C-alpha cells in the first residue's frame, strides 16, 4: 500500500517536472484546447438556445392578433365575431386585458425588471388580443393581410417565418458544432500529442534506464497520462469560464434590449445550463488530453 502511495507521489512529481520543463508547449496546448472548447462550447450553446427558441415558438399561437388599447370590450366582441366567422380558422382564443397585463408583469419579474413602475392595477393600459390557429398553414399570409384590414386591429403577428428562420439556423449551428467537434478535437489532440512527445524525448534517457531497471508500466507511463489530464483540465476550466462570461454578458445585454427582440430571442439562463455544461467541458478536456497521452505512449514509449 505504501509502495503504491509512493508510486502515485512519484508520478505526480514527475508530471509537474515535465510540465514545468516544457511550459511553453504546455501554454500552447492549453491555449489551443481552450480555443477549441470555447468555439465548440459556444456553438453548442447556440444550438441549445436556438432549439429553446423553436420550442418556445412551438408553444405559442400560430398567430397573435392584437387590438388597439382604445378598443372597447364591445368593439372587441365584434372583432372576435369577424375572426370566428372566417372559414379558415381552426381555433381562436380571446386574451383579456387583465390576462395580458399579468403576462407583462410576470415577464418583467422573470427578467429581473419588476422594479420598473408599471401601472399594474390599471388593465386599460393593455389591450385585448386573440390567439389564432389556422386549418391550413398555406393561408397564413392571406389571412394576415385580411385581418390587417379589420377596423380596431393594431397588429397581426405570425410566427411562421420566425420558425422557418430558426429551424434553418439550428440546422446550420448543429452542423457547425459537429464539424468543429471533429476538426478542433483532432487539432487539439495533435498539438497535445506534440507537447507530450517533447517531454518523452526530454526524458528519453530516464525512460531507457527505467526500462532496464524494470520499472512498472505505471511508473513509466503515469507521468504522461497525468500530463494529458492536467492540460485537459486547465484548457476546459479556462474555456468554461470564458464561455460563461461571454454568455452571461449576452444574456444581460438581451434582457435590457428592446421588447420586440426579447419576444423572439429568449436565452436560457446560464444557471440552468451551468453544471451540465461544466461537466461536458471537463469531460471534453480530459478525453482529449487522455487521447493525446495514450497516442504518445503508444507511439513513443516502447517497453
Amino acid at each position, binding site marked *: 500500500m505504501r509502495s503504491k502511495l509512493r508510486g502515485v507521489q512519484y508520478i505526480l512529481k514527475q508530471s509537474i517536472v515535465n510540465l514545468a520543463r516544457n511550459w511553453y508547449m504546455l501554454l500552447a496546448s492549453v491555449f489551443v484546447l481552450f480555443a477549441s472548447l470555447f468555439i465548440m462550447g459556444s456553438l453548442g450553446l447556440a444550438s441549445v438556445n436556438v432549439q429553446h427558441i423553436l420550442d418556445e415558438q412551438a408553444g405559442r399561437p400560430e398567430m397573435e392578433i392584437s387590438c388597439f388599447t382604445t378598443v372597447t370590450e364591445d368593439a372587441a366582441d365584434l372583432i372576435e365575431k369577424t375572426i370566428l366567422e372566417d372559414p379558415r380558422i381552426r381555433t381562436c382564443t380571446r386574451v383579456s386585458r387583465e390576462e395580458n397585463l399579468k403576462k407583462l408583469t410576470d415577464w418583467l419579474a422573470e427578467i429581473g425588471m419588476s422594479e420598473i413602475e408599471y401601472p399594474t392595477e390599471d388593465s386599460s393600459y393593455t389591450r385585448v388580443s386573440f390567439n389564432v390557429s389556422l386549418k391550413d398553414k398555406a393561408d397564413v399570409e392571406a389571412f394576415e393581410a385580411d385581418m390587417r384590414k379589420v377596423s380596431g386591429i393594431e397588429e397581426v403577428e405570425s410566427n411562421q417565418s420566425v420558425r422557418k428562420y430558426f429551424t434553418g439556423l439550428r440546422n446550420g449551428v448543429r452542423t457547425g458544432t459537429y464539424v468543429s467537434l471533429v476538426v478542433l478535437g483532432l487539432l487539439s489532440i495533435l498539438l497535445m500529442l506534440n507537447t507530450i512527445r517533447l517531454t518523452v524525448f526530454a526524458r528519453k534517457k530516464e525512460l531507457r534506464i527505467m526500462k*532496464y531497471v524494470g520499472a512498472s508500466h505505471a511508473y513509466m507511463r503515469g507521468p504522461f497520462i497525468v500530463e494529458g489530464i492536467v492540460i485537459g483540465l486547465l484548457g476546459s476550466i479556462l474555456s468554461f469560464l470564458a464561455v460563461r462570461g461571454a454568455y452571461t454578458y449576452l444574456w444581460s445585454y438581451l434582457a435590457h434590449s428592446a421588447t420586440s427582440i426579447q419576444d423572439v430571442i429568449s436565452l436560457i439562463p446560464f444557471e440552468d445550463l451551468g453544471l451540465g455544461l461544466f461537466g461536458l467541458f471537463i469531460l471534453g478536456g480530459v478525453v482529449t488530453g487522455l487521447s493525446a497521452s495514450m497516442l504518445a505512449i503508444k507511439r513513443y514509449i516502447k517497453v
Partner: protein
Amino acid sequence: MALDFQKQKTMIWFDRVQKTYPNGVEAIRNLDFRIAEGEFVFLMGASGAGKSTLIKLLMKEEEPSQGRIFVNGRTLSKIRRSAIQKYRRNIGVVFQDFRLLERKTVFENVAFAMEILGASRSEIEERVGLVLELMGLTAKKDEYPTHLSGGEQQRVALARAIINTPKILIADEPTGNLDPENAEQIMQLLLRINERGTTVLVATHAQHMVQELGKRVIYLDHGVVGQDGIVQSEPETLMVSEVDDDEE
C-alpha cells in the same frame, strides 16, 4: 576450471537460437550455450558478431526468430508483455556510455533505480550508502556525473545496476571508454560482484584483460559460437579449453 552443468544450476541457456531482423540481416544463427549460476563469462567477437543482439534477446527487447532462451528457469518467450518489466528486475545492465542522468547527483542516480520500484526513503538511504561504499564512491555521493572521471561514472552505473540485487549483471563494453587503470578497477569490481553470487556476463573487446582474468569466454563469430572456454594463451589467437556442457 571446467564447469559441470549437472551440478550447477543453469542461469542462462540459449537453445539453438536464431535471430533474423525484418530487413533480412541474420544477426544470430543457431546459438547454443549455457551459463551457470554465479559464473563469470566474457562475450567476445568482432563488431557485428551478434553481441548486442544477444544482450537485447536476454533483456527481452527482441524476440528470437527460432529457438528458446531460458533465464533462471523461465522460458523468455512465455513471459507475458505485462510481466517483462518484472523479469528485467533480475538483470542489471551497464553500458559503455554509462547512461547517467546529468541532473541527478551520484546518490540520486543510484537511488533512482530504487525509487522507480517503489522503495521507501529509509531503504534507499541504507542500500545506496552500502553500494556506494562498495564502489568507493561515498565521498562523491553529492557530485554530479559531469564532475566525475570516466571510471567514476562507470562505477556509478555499476552501483545503479546492482542496487536492486539482480541475479544477472550484463556489462556491455564497460571499459570501452576508460583508460587502462580505470578499466582494471571496473573489472575488479565486476569480479567482486560476481564473488557475491551474481552471474556476470561481460561483452568486451579487451582481449588482454580477458586473458589476465582467466575466465570463460564465449567467442561469437558471425552469429554462432565460434569458441567457448577458458583463454589459455596468445591474445592474437584465442585458444580455449572447452567447457564441460553435458547437461540436456
